[in-house]
């Protein structure tokens, strides 16, 4: 039982991270119906920029005096960096292909993914890059169960970001414009919503969330690697499909489920095959209920 609760906590931590990445997929797909293969690389870039800034602050010595400021600044800078990266990538590699066949955009996205991960490798080295490890040692312990400070931080931060995103999308004018663009680009253009701006914004927000997830993964596992974006990217995509692609609440839910399944699968079935569970869920969902848990009806060009 104790181990069950421990696993549950780990599952929620991991699920929150997947949910953050899945949101980028689902938002981009909602607006321009493209599977952004490069999204996993935004996540990896976020992890790298996070470690760069964190170690920069550590080197300056601010980490001991103002830890909270440094952490916030690193998160904010990494998120901004990735948003900047994603907006540029969209303008260069996706925007000219919007009217072409879907395959062209998909392959271009694959190219971007390869380009970015190799760019990270060339600038940052082939080997793992370690996060400053003295952060967040220890945790609360209740009997056998321990909740690391880091896990608390990840869960709180994820929750805060998700709430903020929900507020943005469902309560503000910008969010309304985003939803309108996702529903019908021509119509929203008629009521003076610039679809290019909205698409850029969507890419930026999605990549920012992925960057936050990247730093969290870096802090949680202690290091980042240039090719770390691939597997979480695919799993997060599974999460987005599971929740119903294009649906923001669905992506959050899907992320949590995929995270839980992975942790419980690793704990109770087999640790070696933990990466397989997400794919099996993906295939199962697409086979039995391609709309996902919360998805609306989709026309037959999608599935």
């Amino acid at each position: 039982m104790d181990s069950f609760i421990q696993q549950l906590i780990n599952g929620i931590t991991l699920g929150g991270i997947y949910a953050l990445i899945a949101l980028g997929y689902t938002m981009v797909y909602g607006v321009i119906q493209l599977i952004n293969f490069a999204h996993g690389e935004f996540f990896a870039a976020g992890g790298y920029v996070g470690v760069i800034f964190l170690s920069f602050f550590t080197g300056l010595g601010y980490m001991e005096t103002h830890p909270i400021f440094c952490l916030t600044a690193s998160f904010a800078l990494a998120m901004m960096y990735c948003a900047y990266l994603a907006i540029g990538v969209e303008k260069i590699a996706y925007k000219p292909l919007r009217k072409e066949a879907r395959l062209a955009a998909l392959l271009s996205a694959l190219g971007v993914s390869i380009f970015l991960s190799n760019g990270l490798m060339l600038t940052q080295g082939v080997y793992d890059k370690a996060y400053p490890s003295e952060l967040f040692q220890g945790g609360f312990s209740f009997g056998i169960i321990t909740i690391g400070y880091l896990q608390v931080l990840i869960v709180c931060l994820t929750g805060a970001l998700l709430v903020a995103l929900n507020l943005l999308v469902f309560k503000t004018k910008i969010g309304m414009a985003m939803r309108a663009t996702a529903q019908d680009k021509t119509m929203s253009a008629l009521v003076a919503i610039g679809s290019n701006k909205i698409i850029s914004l969507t890419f930026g927000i999605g990549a920012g969330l992925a960057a936050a997830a990247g730093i969290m993964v870096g802090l949680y596992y202690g290091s980042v690697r240039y090719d770390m974006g691939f597997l979480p990217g695919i799993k997060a995509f599974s999460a987005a499909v599971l929740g119903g692609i294009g649906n923001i609440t669905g992506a959050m839910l899907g992320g949590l489920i995929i995270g839980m399944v992975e942790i419980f699968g690793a704990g109770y079935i087999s640790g070696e095959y933990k990466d397989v569970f997400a794919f099996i869920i993906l295939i199962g969902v697409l086979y039995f209920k391609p709309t996902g848990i919360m998805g609306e009806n989709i026309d037959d060009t999608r599935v």
Partner: protein
Amino acid sequence: MIQEFKKIWKQYAITMLWLLGLLWPLLGIHPDGTISFKQTITVWLYILSGTFICFIIYIINSSGNLKFFTEPVVNTSEKLNNMVQNMPSWIWKSVLLIGAVLYPLLTGRYPTDVAINVLLYICLGLGLYVVAGLAGMLDLGHIAFYGVGAYTYAILNVRYGIGFWVCFPLAGLSACIAGCIVGYPTLRMRGDYLAIVTLGFGEIVRIILNNWMSLTNGPNGILGVKTIGILRPVMENGFSFEIFWVKKLEYFYYFALVLAILTIIAVTRINFSRIGRALEAIREDETAAELMGVNTFYYKLLAYAMGAVFAGFAGALFAARMKFVSPESFTFLESVMVLSMVVLGGMSSIPGIILGVIALIVLPEVFRELESYRMLVFGLTMIIMMLFRPSGLIAAKRKKMMEKKS
């Protein structure tokens, strides 16, 4: 016109500034708390000068000032094309064949090695062509079938001592079965979803190969796979046969060549058969094809299985050549590589795919010193290809042939 150029220049300048902003945090911020600009600027200037030259050429070309150079080139290539088309096809086919047969005798060991790679990838690429080019199903896990074929031969050979010629059809068969297992649940999907699911299956296969220690020996791979053995008649002390192990690279080249030629013939036959037409109908409009009486599910599964079989054969030959298989050879990146060969050459033309394979295998070998930049350039090429020439180097020819006949 001038307005347009101004716009292009502005976009170029913005892109370059964007790149500078992108590079600086990665190169200019150091963990010891210092900030530097020198390295960033140097790298950026390299990129700037490189892209600037390409950009100038592009602009001069699009304004028509390069005609004195491009026009003769285009003319000669057209003339050549006409000549090839007017010649009876057996002439250039036999020229190519003789060239291919003489190739290992004229070159050294290393070029032969590269050529074997090219031939194996031609089999893979043509298998994928049936799936992606003809039937229009984007398959991002094609390398998994290559892996299944290679492992089938390796396991049967190392564990049970079964020879190549028995395993070779078995490798095709097991890849075919794997294709059906993958295809049966997934082929109801279309487009992007199919791509991601096939990617998932490719990864599942790799993970299984990596973790099923008792069968596949995990990440260490299987060592000591025997090469191809053929029976050779021996005339000493009467007439008998002895097993001749194909160890020399040149002999291997011929096996790969035969396999590649058979694949090319088979795929050409598929292309112009009833099945090929059905698959193209599915690619163009699945709903309409179904209405016209094409059993879409059956044909899609067939296409998938056929693609898998070619990959499986190539896999068996790969295992026999390398004498070693490990899951490292069958990663997602390899799938992307095969797919880009198919796309680069033009999704639906067989000569185009062969050209794409040669380009993507030989060019990296030529630029061996720039090894670490290889994948970077590869990704960039893919983006640029999609932006400027999404239909590939050699576009499909079917329409023209139809016109000729009618």
